[in-house]
Each structure stands twice: as structure tokens, then as C-alpha cells.
């Protein structure tokens, strides 16, 4: 049955139309969770607001378990679902550069569009920066090509790397997330929570 588009159950154009509706839901959930506010997002790094951690990890676990269950029920063929390839070096270096951008700019790309949609000028400027950064990378690609392609590992699953079944890894993730949620609730109470 699923995934619908790769199985050609829906046409390419229907898939694009549904992408638009999925985007609306995505934007709605991000904005209504407070992700249109950079000060709320940055709160996770100072303990005064842990909304990022709570939403991000709950979402990752929900989707991960949903895929595992749908696969178990035979509703989705996971071999047709895109798994991000792992290029070890660029995954780390790219992540480090993004982390620096996150703490300086207070947004990530998706959330900056939500902020801009409700009129945050800082989010619009951040988006301007994104375009410069993407263009800059493309323009100087020759300098980074080696780094970009280094240590290609294929499309490994973290559960395989750890020698765990997907289900057991899922359980492990849930326990880790619950532990983090306890710390997050404690931190929000301990650190002053300014109104913004």
C-alpha cells in the first residue's frame, strides 16, 4: 500500500498538492507550539524554555513508532521510504556549522519561515541569510567537495549499527526521551522564565 507516491497509487501532481497540505499542517503545528519565536526556541539552550526538546523528541518518536507499526501491519513498505544517506564527516561538520547558526540566529530554516509568516522581521532577515549561505556553499563548492563526500557509509540504520532490533531501539529512545523530559521540566522550574 504505502508509500503512496513511490507505489504510483497517486500521481506526481497529486503528491505535490498533498505536499502543500502537509506543509500547512507542518507550519500550523510549528507556529502554534511557539516555534515562530526565536526567544522561545533559544530557551532550550539556557533552560528557561524547553519547548524545542519536548516537541522535537515527541515528534521523532511518534513518527518512528508510527512507521514501525505501519510496517509491521504491512501498510507501508519501508524499503521504498527515503533514508538519509550518511556521510560521516559532513554530517558532523555541517551539524556544527548549523548549531553555531542556531545559537546566533535563534531559528532553524523551517521555524524561520513560520516566524516570517507572522511578521517577525528577525526571521525574514534570517531567511535572507539562508539564501546567502546556500548560494555561498554552491559558489565555493569546489573547496568543500572532498569534505562533502568524505566517509560515505551508505544508508545505515542506527539500530543496525548498535546491534539492536528496530523495536528495541525504539523502546530505548522512548526511555531516553522520558529522562530528558524530566530534566526539562525541572530546568524550566529552576531557571527564571521571563515573559516575552
Amino acid at each position, binding site marked *: 500500500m504505502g508509500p503512496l507516491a513511490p507505489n504510483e497509487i497517486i500521481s506526481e501532481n497529486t503528491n505535490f498538492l498533498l505536499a502543500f497540505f*502537509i506543509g500547512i499542517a507542518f507550519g500550523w503545528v510549528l507556529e502554534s507550539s511557539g516555534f515562530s519565536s526565536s526567544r522561545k526556541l533559544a530557551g532550550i539552550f539556557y533552560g528557561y524554555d524547553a519547548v524545542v526538546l519536548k516537541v522535537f523528541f*515527541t515528534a521523532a518518536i511518534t513518527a518512528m513508532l508510527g512507521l514501525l507499526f505501519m510496517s509491521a501491519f504491512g501498510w507501508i513498505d519501508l524499503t521504498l521510504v527515503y533514508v538519509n544517506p550518511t556521510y560521516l564527516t559532513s554530517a558532523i561538520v555541517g551539524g556544527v556549522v548549523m548549531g553555531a547558526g542556531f545559537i546566533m540566529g535563534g531559528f532553524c530554516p523551517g521555524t524561520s519561515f513560520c516566524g516570517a509568516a507572522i511578521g517577525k522581521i528577525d526571521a525574514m532577515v534570517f531567511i535572507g541569510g539562508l539564501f546567502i549561505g546556500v548560494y555561498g556553499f554552491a559558489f565555493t563548492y569546489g573547496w568543500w567537495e572532498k569534505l562533502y563526500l568524505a566517509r560515505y557509509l551508505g544508508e545505515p540504520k542506527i539500530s543496525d549499527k548498535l546491534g539492536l532490533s528496530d523495536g528495541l531501539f525504539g523502546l530505548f529512545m522512548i526511555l531516553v526521551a522520558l529522562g530528558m523530559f524530566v530534566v526539562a521540566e525541572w530546568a524550566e522550574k529552576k531557571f527564571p522564565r521571563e515573559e516575552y
Partner: protein
Amino acid sequence: MTINTSKDKSRKYLNPYLGGVLLGLVLLSANFIAGRGLGASGAIKSVVATTIGTVNKDAIGTMPFMAEYAESHSGNPMKSWLVFEMFGVIVGGFLSGAVAGRLKLKVEHSPKISSRRRLIFALAGGILFGFGSQLGRGCTSGSALSGMAVLSLGGFITMMAIFGTAYALAYFFRKNWI
């Protein structure tokens, strides 16, 4: 800036755990329908590729990174799943903000810093995030969140690198936020 009591605010924003479950269901739908996760930076890449191609068709041939991308999106780079999705994000964000009464043109910043300082850091942060998202093959949505949902090793590594670095640098930028 409107000052809310925390009671007001908790009513206005979604409970974060509920928000997380809903976001997870959106991500699950994307995988079920399109066989891929959510994303954001890929849409920016499409716009940049289109712009370069429109302004100077020859330039794209001299930029291997973009040329490869234009080839894999034969026809029009704007006709991509992520571009349609990101148009939706703008609409969805706007609608949610409108319903909650949060539509307001403003620079959001800590009272301890000026708007100008906030905007300079927003620009610098955007440049770094844009650059890093291309090097890391996706941002917080496409690489970290969507990658984690399909148990991609790279997704977990990128997630840890993003948050780890932001925590490591938080002390140096604390004036901007607290």
C-alpha cells in the same frame, strides 16, 4: 510587545507534548504519502538554483553543486516536493498566527540588546545555517528530525552535532537571549 501572564500563555500555545505528537503525525503522513520526510532547506536550494539559472544559464554549468541538482530535477527545480511543502508552511504558520492573534510586524529581541544587534546576529546565523544545511545534506527538519524517524545514523549524528554545538556556544551568546 504584549506582556502575558504565564497562565495566558499556556492557553495560547499548544501543549508541547501534544504539539510533538501532531508534528510526528504530520511527519508520518509525509512518509506514508510521499515516501520521504519533511524539509525546509531543500526548498531554498531550489529557489537558489532557479535564480541562478534564470539570471545566467551558463553560470549553473560552472557550479557543479547546482548543476547536479538541476539535472536531478529535470525541467524546473521549483517543481519539487519541498517547494510545495514550504509554501504550505508559510500559509499554515500565517493561519495559526492569525487565529491566535500573533500577527505583528516586529523585531523580537531580548530587552538587553538593540534591534540592530538582533538583526545582525539573525543574518549571520542564517548564513551559517544555510551553509551548514548544504554541507550536512539537510537541516533540523530534513536531516535531524526526518532522519531520526527513519532511524538514519546520519540523522542522529547531525542532530547531536547541531544541538551539541549550540549548547557548547550558548555561553558566548548568552547576552542575546537571557
